[in-house]
């Protein structure tokens, strides 16, 4: 929970690599233990994680089925019809994919629930700092990302207001086929875009008035601090990586 968001982002990314490296039962067991440990540490209830899986259930089942039916030949053939074989490999692969889904979804739910979006954005911008050397305006991007986030609720609110006004003028949102829906979106989208243009104009003037020249010559109010617990997580991660590499060899 209290980890540096940069650390969380990096850990999550490396975790996905870790999941790739896992290729047998033992390594998956280690990963599951690792994930459950992280969830315990976050003090978030397990129910939240299961809820995160529900919307994806169709995709997961579909994928697992495909994997089951079209896996490369190998091992014992359980069932055969035309060009479809259900093989031992297929079953095992399908099982692995299923676990992979669960692990990645759980870890990402953990990241979402334990981190403010603003921190994730700040973290991303901070991680991109090395790109300065190839002339990427990282500080400007960070500023833009933070402004984008700050305006999301404002614009959602405005979208809701415009939808209400157009409903009162007889528009039915969310009814009819895709084409009809596409058409009914114009009375919402045109005013929203016009308003966004106005807001951008106003905001850039306000920023200039407050002395914003460019992103290079500024001090930073919001800073991220790397703490000892961040380092500890990497030690744990390294242990996990080592274990899985050993499993692969073995």
């Amino acid at each position, binding site marked *: 929970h209290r980890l540096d968001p940069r650390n969380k982002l990096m850990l*999550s990314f490396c975790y*996905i690599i870790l999941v790739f490296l896992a290729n047998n039962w033992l390594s998956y067991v280690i990963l599951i233990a690792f994930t459950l440990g992280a969830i315990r540490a976050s003090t978030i209830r397990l129910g939240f994680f299961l809820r*995160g899986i529900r919307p994806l259930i169709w*995709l997961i089942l*579909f*994928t697992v089925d*495909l*994997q089951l039916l079209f896996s490369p030949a190998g091992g014992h053939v359980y069932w055969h019809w035309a060009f479809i074989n259900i093989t031992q490999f297929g079953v095992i*692969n399908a099982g692995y*994919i299923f676990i992979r*889904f669960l692990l*990645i*979804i759980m*870890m*990402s*739910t953990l*990241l*979402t629930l334990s981190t403010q*979006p603003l921190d*994730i*954005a700040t973290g*991303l911008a901070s991680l991109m700092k090395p790109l300065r050397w190839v002339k990427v305006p990282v500080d*400007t*991007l960070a*500023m*833009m*990302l933070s*402004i*984008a*986030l*700050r*305006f*999301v609720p404002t*614009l*959602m609110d405005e*979208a*809701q207001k415009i939808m209400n006004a157009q409903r009162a003028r007889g528009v039915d949102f969310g009814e009819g086929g*895709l*084409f009809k*829906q*596409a*058409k009914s*979106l*114009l009375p919402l*989208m*045109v005013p*929203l*875009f*016009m308003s*966004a*243009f106005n*807001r*951008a*104009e106003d*905001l*850039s003037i306000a*920023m*200039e008035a407050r002395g*914003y020249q*460019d992103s290079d010559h500024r001090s930073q109010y919001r800073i991220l601090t790397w703490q000892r617990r961040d380092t500890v997580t990497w030690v744990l991660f390294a242990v996990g990586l080592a274990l899985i590499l050993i499993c692969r060899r073995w």
Partner: protein
Amino acid sequence: MAKHNLKQEILAAVLAALTIALSLMIVIPVPATHGMVTLCEVGIYTSAILFGNPVGVFVGGASGFMIDVLSGYPEWCLFSLVIHGLQGLVVAALAHRASGVVRGMVLPMLAGSLVMVVGYYLATSLLFGWPAGLASIPGNLIQVGFGLVVTVALVASLTRFNPKLSKGMIR
């Protein structure tokens, strides 16, 4: 010069916010695929077509990244950053050079849509195997197709509402 840049930067940021807000708010179910379409493409394509490139690539990348973070699929956020960023980049770059509805809008959007569909096929395959990659294609095709149709109508309406937009005054 700096002034000009700032206006464009803030415009890109606010348009990214708009794209994120629309994607989170309006989710249209598609019974055929058990999936849904969002207005993510509409935001990216419209921004890219009207304002050209730094705006297009930023709106694509930033909204792709933040939509995943905010809607609880951060495992995708880095992929989306790249895929939607490229999508915005391609549409903006192609639309910038041509004019007219088909060459200025539809063809660039088709190219951008290809980037998106192929990008997610590759990313999904990488994460969950090629069958999952294949499974992502139909939903994504509907998503980009819907985005394309709405964008054509929206850009036409916006430029009629404010004729200055068609001249790309901010670009």
